[in-house]
C-alpha cells in the first residue's frame, strides 16, 4: 500500500514551526515537515518556486517529500513534472525551466549532463530492481524468472526501447532464458494494468511498481534481478531559478527520512 506521512517527521515539524514563532499564517500544526537538521538550507526560510522534473515512478514519494518541504517553508511553492525520464530529458535540453532533475536511469541523465546542464555532478539517490508482478492468488502459478520462457503462459514485459524493457533483456540474458512474452508494453504502468486486470499471468516490472500497485498485484522477487539494478541519479540544473530550494530538496531526498520514504515505496538505498 501507499505510504504517506512519516510520524517522526510530523513531530519534528511541530518543533520547527514552534521555533519559527508564527512567522506565517499557514502554520497548520498537523502538517509534517522535513528533517531540517540534515538540510543545509532548512529552517523555513526558503521562498519562491521550485520546479522538479522527476521520473514518473517517483510520483508518490516525491509528492510527499515536496509537501513536507513546503510545509516547512511556507513561502515556497514546489511544482513537479512527473513523466518518462526520456521525455523529461528532452524537455530539459529543449530549455524547459527546471531546478532539479531526477532520472530513473543513468542514460537519460547522461543526455542532460552531455548538454552541460547539470549544476553539480549527479548522485545516485536510490535504486530499483525488477520484480515479477502476478495477479492476486498467482493464477498462472509463476515461481520465478524461468516461467518467462514458457510460451503457454501469457506474459508481459516492457518493450526494449523503454528502461524496464532494457533491464528485462539484461536479466534474461544473464539467466540464459529466451523470453516468450505476448506483449512488449510501452511502460511499466501499462504492464501493471494488465496484471491488475488478470489478463496476463505475469509481468516483469520494478519492485517500486509492485509496491505502488498495493493489493492489486503480488510481487515475486528473483535473484537474477541483481544483474540489472536500476540507479536513479539526481542533480540540480544550471538553469535553476531557485538553487537554494533545489539543494534543499536534494538534501531532503538523500536524508534518512527521504531514504526511508523511498524504501517504503519499494525502492532501496544505493548499495555504494
Amino acid at each position, binding site marked *: 500500500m501507499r505510504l504517506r506521512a512519516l510520524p517522526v517527521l510530523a513531530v519534528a515539524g511541530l518543533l520547527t514551526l514552534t521555533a519559527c514563532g508564527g512567522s506565517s499564517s499557514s502554520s497548520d500544526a498537523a502538517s509534517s515537515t522535513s528533517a531540517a537538521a540534515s538540510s543545509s538550507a532548512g529552517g523555513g526560510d526558503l521562498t519562491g518556486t521550485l520546479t522538479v522534473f522527476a521520473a514518473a515512478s517517483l510520483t508518490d514519494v516525491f509528492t510527499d517529500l515536496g509537501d513536507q518541504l513546503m510545509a516547512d517553508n511556507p513561502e515556497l511553492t514546489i511544482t513537479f513534472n512527473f513523466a518518462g525520464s526520456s521525455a523529461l530529458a528532452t524537455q530539459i535540453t529543449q530549455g524547459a525551466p527546471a531546478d532539479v532533475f531526477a532520472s530513473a536511469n543513468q542514460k537519460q541523465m547522461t543526455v542532460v549532463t552531455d548538454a552541460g546542464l547539470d549544476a553539480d555532478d549527479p548522485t545516485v539517490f536510490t535504486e530499483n530492481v525488477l520484480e515479477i508482478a502476478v495477479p492476486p492468488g498467482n493464477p498462472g502459478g509463476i515461481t520465478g524468472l524461468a516461467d518467462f520462457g514458457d510460451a503457454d503462459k501469457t506474459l508481459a514485459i516492457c518493450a526494449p526501447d523503454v528502461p524496464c524493457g532494457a533491464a528485462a533483456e539484461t536479466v534474461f540474458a544473464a539467466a540464459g532464458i529466451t523470453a516468450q512474452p505476448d*506483449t512488449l508494453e510501452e511502460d511499466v504502468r501499462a504492464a501493471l494494468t494488465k496484471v491488475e*486486470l488478470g489478463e496476463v499471468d505475469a509481468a516483469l516490472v520494478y519492485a517500486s511498481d509492485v509496491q505502488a500497485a498495493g493489493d492489486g498485484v503480488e510481487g515475486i522477487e528473483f535473484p537474477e534481478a541483481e544483474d540489472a539494478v536500476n540507479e536513479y541519479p539526481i542533480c540540480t540544473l544550471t538553469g535553476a531559478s531557485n538553487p537554494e530550494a533545489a539543494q534543499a530538496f536534494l538534501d531532503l531526498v538523500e536524508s534518512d527520512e527521504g531514504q526511508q520514504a523511498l524504501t517504503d515505496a519499494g525502492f532501496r538505498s544505493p548499495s555504494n
Partner: protein
Amino acid sequence: MPAPLLVPALVGVAFLVLPLLGLLIRAPWSDLWPQLTQPQVGQALRLSLVSATLATLVSLVLGVPIAWVLARSTLPGRSVLRALVTVPLVLPPVVGGVALFLVLGRQGILGRYLYEEFDYTIPFTTTAVVIAETFVAMPFLVISVEGALRAADARFEDAAATLGANRWTTFRRVTLPLVAPGVAAGAVLCWARALGEFGATITFAGNFPGTTQTMPLAVYLALQSNPEGAIVLSLVLLFVSLATLLLLRDRWLGRSGAPLA
C-alpha cells in the same frame, strides 16, 4: 474571396501543415533507407494496413445498419442510442482498451467463457487489434453515414415502396446507392482513424512485433529510444495513408466526390 474567411483559412492550413513540415525537415534523410528496410517496419506497416482495413470492413457491416436505425427507424430511445454509439469518440482510447478487457479479456464478462470453454483469449492477438480499432473508429463511420442518410431525400424510399420494394430491397437498391458518397467518406474517415489508433490498441492488444505492433505503436516506442527513427516511421505512415486516400478518392468518388483525404 472575403478576408474574414480567407485569413482564418490560411492560418488553419498553416496550423495543420506546419507540424508535417516539421517532420519532413527533421527527418534523417541520409539514413532513411536503413531505417525503412528494418524488417519490423514492413511488418508493422503491413499489420497496420491489414488491421485498419479489416476494422473498416467490420465497421461497415455493423455501422451502416446502426446509422440506418438512427436515421430512419422509429425506435424509441434513439437519442440515447446515438449518445451510446458515440461514446468511443469522447472516451480516452486507453480507457476504451481497459473497457474492452473488462468485456472481452480472459477475465472479462464474455471473454471468460471463451477462455474457459474454448481456451481462447482475444487480447494480445491481431483480432484484438482489429477489435480495438473498430471500437474507436466505427463511430466516425456511423456519424458520417447517419448524416448522409438524414440529408438524403426519404421520398425516394417512398417511391421504391410504391414500386414493390420491401424495406430491405429499398435499402440495398435505393438508399445505399444514394448515400454511397457518405458511406465512402465515412469509411475513409474510419480507416484513417483506425490506422492512427494507438491507445486502445496498445492497451487491449498489447504490443508485439508481427502480431499486434501497428505503426503508431512502433512510432511511439521508437520515440523512447530512437527519435529520428520515429520520425521516419511517422513519415512512412503518413505517406502510405495519404497515397491510399488519394487513390481511393479518384477511384471511388470521382471528381465530384465528398470532401475527404
